[in-house]
């Protein structure tokens, strides 16, 4: 008679895909709104994007409970920062905070795959991409989540970011216009929805630029 062991996992994968593209004076962050578990869809209208600061947005996929907890921790830390410094956190500062927050739980990680997007202190678009334990780098564009393997090669082909190893360092932000970048994002998700079962339903796109912030939505395949 063997002792019954714990047969539950503290983690689940609720799916979804996130993309961010940095432009000369804008940043586009997008994510689908499908939340799944196993072969079931839990919600067709769940947002994975949160505005952490004036000029920082985070899109996260993975385990939803961890994503939500992470969002709350960062929002609380930003509030404290505002009280202490009397200003908003810059995007690069938020990037470091996110990395540190993720590594803090290095031995029981937040199962969250994040892309941080926004405008840096010069008003240029910036995108930071992360793994689950906080390893990060600033890039011109990034994709995370269940559809990332489908989207990243396509973005590599279309955006042709210069190698980060070049000296002198070449600018990673895309020369594409804002509307061209948005179109590219829509194409990425339309394609990913065809083959990734966890991506679909609706696409939420958030655009951050000098004039402020705006949202666009696009219906995706519901199967």
């Amino acid at each position, binding site marked *: 008679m063997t002792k019954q062991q714990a047969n539950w996992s503290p*983690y689940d994968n609720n799916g979804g895909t996130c993309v961010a593209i940095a432009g000369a004076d804008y940043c586009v962050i997008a994510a689908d709104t499908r939340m799944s578990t196993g072969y079931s869809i839990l919600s067709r209208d769940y947002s994975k994007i949160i505005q952490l600061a004036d000029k920082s947005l985070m899109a996260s996929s993975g*385990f939803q409970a961890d994503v939500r907890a992470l969002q709350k921790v960062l929002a609380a830390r930003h509030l404290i920062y505002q009280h202490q410094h009397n200003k908003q956190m810059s995007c690069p500062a938020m990037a470091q905070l996110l990395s540190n927050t993720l590594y803090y739980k290095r031995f*029981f990680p937040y199962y969250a795959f994040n892309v941080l997007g926004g405008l840096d202190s010069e008003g240029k678009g910036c995108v930071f991409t992360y793994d689950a334990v906080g390893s990060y780098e600033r890039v011109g564009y990034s994709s995370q989540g269940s559809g990332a393997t489908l989207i990243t090669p396509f973005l590599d082909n279309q955006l042709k970011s210069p190698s980060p190893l070049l000296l002198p360092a070449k600018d990673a932000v895309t020369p594409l216009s804002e509307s061209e970048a948005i179109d590219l994002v829509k194409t990425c998700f339309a394609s990913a929805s065809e083959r990734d079962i966890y991506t679909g339903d609706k696409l939420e796109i958030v655009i951050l630029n000098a004039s402020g912030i705006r949202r666009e939505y696009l219906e995706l395949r519901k199967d």
Partner: protein
Amino acid sequence: MNVADSAPAMNNLIGSDADSQRTLYPYVTGTSVVGIKYKDGILLAADMGDYLACHDSGSYGSTLRYKTVERMKSVGKHSIIGASGEISDFQEIMRYLDELILYDNMWDDGNSFGPKEVHNYLTRVMYNRRNKFNPLWNSLVLGGVKNGQKYLGTVNMIGVHYEDNHVATGFGNHLSRPILRDEWHENLTFEEGVKLLEKCMRVLLYRDRSAVNKLQIAKITEEGVTISQPYSLKTFWNFAAFQNPTVGAEGSW
């Protein structure tokens, strides 16, 4: 990266004396809860059966132990909760919620927690227990109306949560949500809502092994909470294929 393996935090918890201090597996469980928004508020449905987990640690099977378990309760003035999973954990959740509402009332400031607040509180409780590897083994539905705003949400034992126009736990996700996605619409009347829920519960009765034919419907509107008396659904078993199942293949079953 296999994240579930890299949890050395679990090393001193598994297979040791610490096991006696936490939930390893559920013992007495209730099955699906289904909830919908309708014109005047929220409707929840759940059956009244509770099954005992396998009776010894080696074998299959479960026993219907309790047949009159209320798995839906009101919470404060504006919310109702429905629970599936381990019933003793639900009873503990009710103690947490009773204390939450008590402290809220003690402020005596004219404010009271709405369903959104209660759902958020429950989500934090469930997530924090999951973080300590000692979960409350439940999937909860939380619905209510406050100041004309309807709210319906759900949260499970590892803290996954969301709100929608219709929600379900357990088997309800597989069998009821598809029906609701097809037939739910804004401004269902009470009669239409009950009919829709009964359709969902009937399918669950046919296809969920742990469902029993004794259910309650709970309703919450701006005016308050009503939980119906238990009743049973009409079922139909006279399909031709079931009358003589082995005709054409004698000897099979």
